């Protein structure tokens, strides 16, 4: 049996298992099902892609140990470079500004303030949750990290042409360094979030300790998307402009300032469609544990992890398969 057959069979079996779970797992165990039957097919495809790529990686790992060990030792070799690049990104960001690093804290707070003013006077949404600023800043935290890290990472390879043309560096180092430096920023945004949370005396639940889980999912997802985008940017520069518009669309499709369940009654179809947006799930997951004291069910985890692993494995695949061609297009 070839590798292809092997992963094909595994994908079919996982698909059947997935469908069985979808229809027969009780809500108490699995949590609310995300969406309708067409969504089932979409998620199923997502999980199948992930599983097949992960299987391929696994097979490579087993059959070609030296290949993987080679990659690990290269990464080890370049880890200092990665750390220096993160440090450099962070230093350059606030170089020449008077308040410097304080902006990492002020920025989310002030944006939150502006949006709160707008959405508690001009546009108002009926909400079950009483602490609108907390709701808002938590959504912003997740969305901003994703957009910032991916937008920075998108230009990371084309922007490092000078280095790439002179010396061999594994190309995934560049997008990953941008995601890591955005993580530092995420830390500051989280402090801002905590400040608002404490000042407004929002109710604290024990599930607050689960916050690292959605953040971890989100970081994996962002890394994957960053790798895909940075690779696309090399061959197709227009993606820079397209992505700018896509992120604006994404901002409105993500429940940052509107309540997530608002659409259930108003337009069930759009509500299901919006489940296609990965950020929808990450924001919901984060709010469930941080604000509402709900432990997300099986589906929420499967989908968040599914999106993350699918993005990461496609990203890694593009890097492995194409990184030698980049140089010819820079």
């Amino acid at each position, binding site marked *: 049996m070839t590798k292809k057959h092997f992963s094909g069979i595994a994908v079919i079996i996982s698909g059947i298992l997935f469908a069985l779970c979808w229809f027969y797992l009780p809500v108490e165990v699995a949590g609310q099902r995300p969406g309708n039957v067409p969504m089932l097919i979409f998620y199923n495809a997502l999980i199948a892609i992930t599983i097949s790529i992960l299987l391929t990686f696994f097979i490579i790992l087993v059959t070609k140990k030296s290949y993987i060990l080679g990659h690990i030792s290269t990464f080890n070799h*370049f880890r200092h470079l990665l750390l220096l*690049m993160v440090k450099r990104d962070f230093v350059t960001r606030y170089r020449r500004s008077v308040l410097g690093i304080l902006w990492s804290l002020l920025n989310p707070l002030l944006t939150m303030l502006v949006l709160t003013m707008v959405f508690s006077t001009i546009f108002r949404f009926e909400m079950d949750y009483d602490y609108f600023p907390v709701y808002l800043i938590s959504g912003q935290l997740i969305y901003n990290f994703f957009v910032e890290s991916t937008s920075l990472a998108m230009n990371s390879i084309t922007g490092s042409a000078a280095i790439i*043309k002179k010396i061999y560096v594994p190309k995934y180092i560049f997008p990953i360094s941008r995601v890591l430096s955005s993580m530092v920023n995420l830390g500051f945004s989280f402090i801002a979030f905590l400040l608002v949370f404490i000042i407004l005396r929002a109710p604290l639940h024990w599930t607050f300790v689960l916050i690292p889980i959605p953040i971890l999912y989100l970081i994996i997802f962002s890394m994957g998307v960053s790798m895909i985008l940075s690779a696309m940017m090399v061959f197709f520069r*227009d993606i820079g402009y397209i992505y700018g518009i896509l992120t604006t669309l994404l901002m409105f499709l993500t429940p940052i300032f509107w309540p997530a369940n608002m659409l259930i009654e108003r337009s069930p179809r759009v509500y299901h469609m919006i489940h296609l947006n990965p950020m929808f799930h990450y924001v919901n997951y984060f709010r469930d544990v941080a604000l509402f004291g709900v432990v997300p069910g099986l589906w929420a985890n499967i989908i968040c992890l599914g999106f993350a692993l699918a993005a990461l494995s496609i990203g890694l695949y593009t890097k492995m398969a194409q990184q030698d061609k980049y140089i010819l297009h820079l």
Partner: protein
Amino acid sequence: MENIAVSVKDVSMMFNLSRDKVLGFKEYIVKALKRQLYYDEFWALKNISFDVPKGEVLGILGLNGSGKSTLLKLVSGVFKPTKGSITVNGSISPLLELGMGFDPEFSARENVYMNGAMFGHSPSYMDTLYKDIMDFAELWEFADVPIKNFSSGMSARLGFSVATRVNPDILIVDEILGVGDFRFAEKSEVRINELLSGGTTVLLVSHAAETIKKLCTRAMILHQGSMLGFGDVDEICELYQKSGIGS
């Protein structure tokens, strides 16, 4: 095999040169559909094979456009060969053109550490080398000046100091000895000789036979992507001058 530093086996490198400028997306689609997207294949290197034993200094002679730099970029891993294979045993310090991968926005100090990291050295290890590097480059006054304000001679000096100080197993030098004033050129020759006695393998590129003669034990001639000769440095230099390519 253990005492071979660089082994190049039947390597060819092809570039696509687009024949006519495609103006826009629509035109691209139309041409792609009509299958009129022609590229000129350009073979920068054709079937090159050679081995470099450890500790040897190999000179590569050739005119501009003969494929010298492409060959060095292949050995240092920047390009992957279209055909053939290259095996390298040991760490490589490529000194291609002026200043390898310096970021113009950053100071000399930051660039030294970044460069060290590209060779896999930790910042704490670079601390121990930093003084030496700056002493050799004579750039203490400009340690915190962004590289973009450096003259080309200054950044070349810094590049040379870093590349020769990070203890590479294999050093790749592309025309760098011609840069800087004569005093620095002398100094860098001494440094190269030091590295040689320490067992470093060197690939040295030049279009001047004298430089090659002074430093190398063996040499090769590249001409329009093909290897015209490979062997003892004196024979090769003679051949180079006789063939009229070099004069």
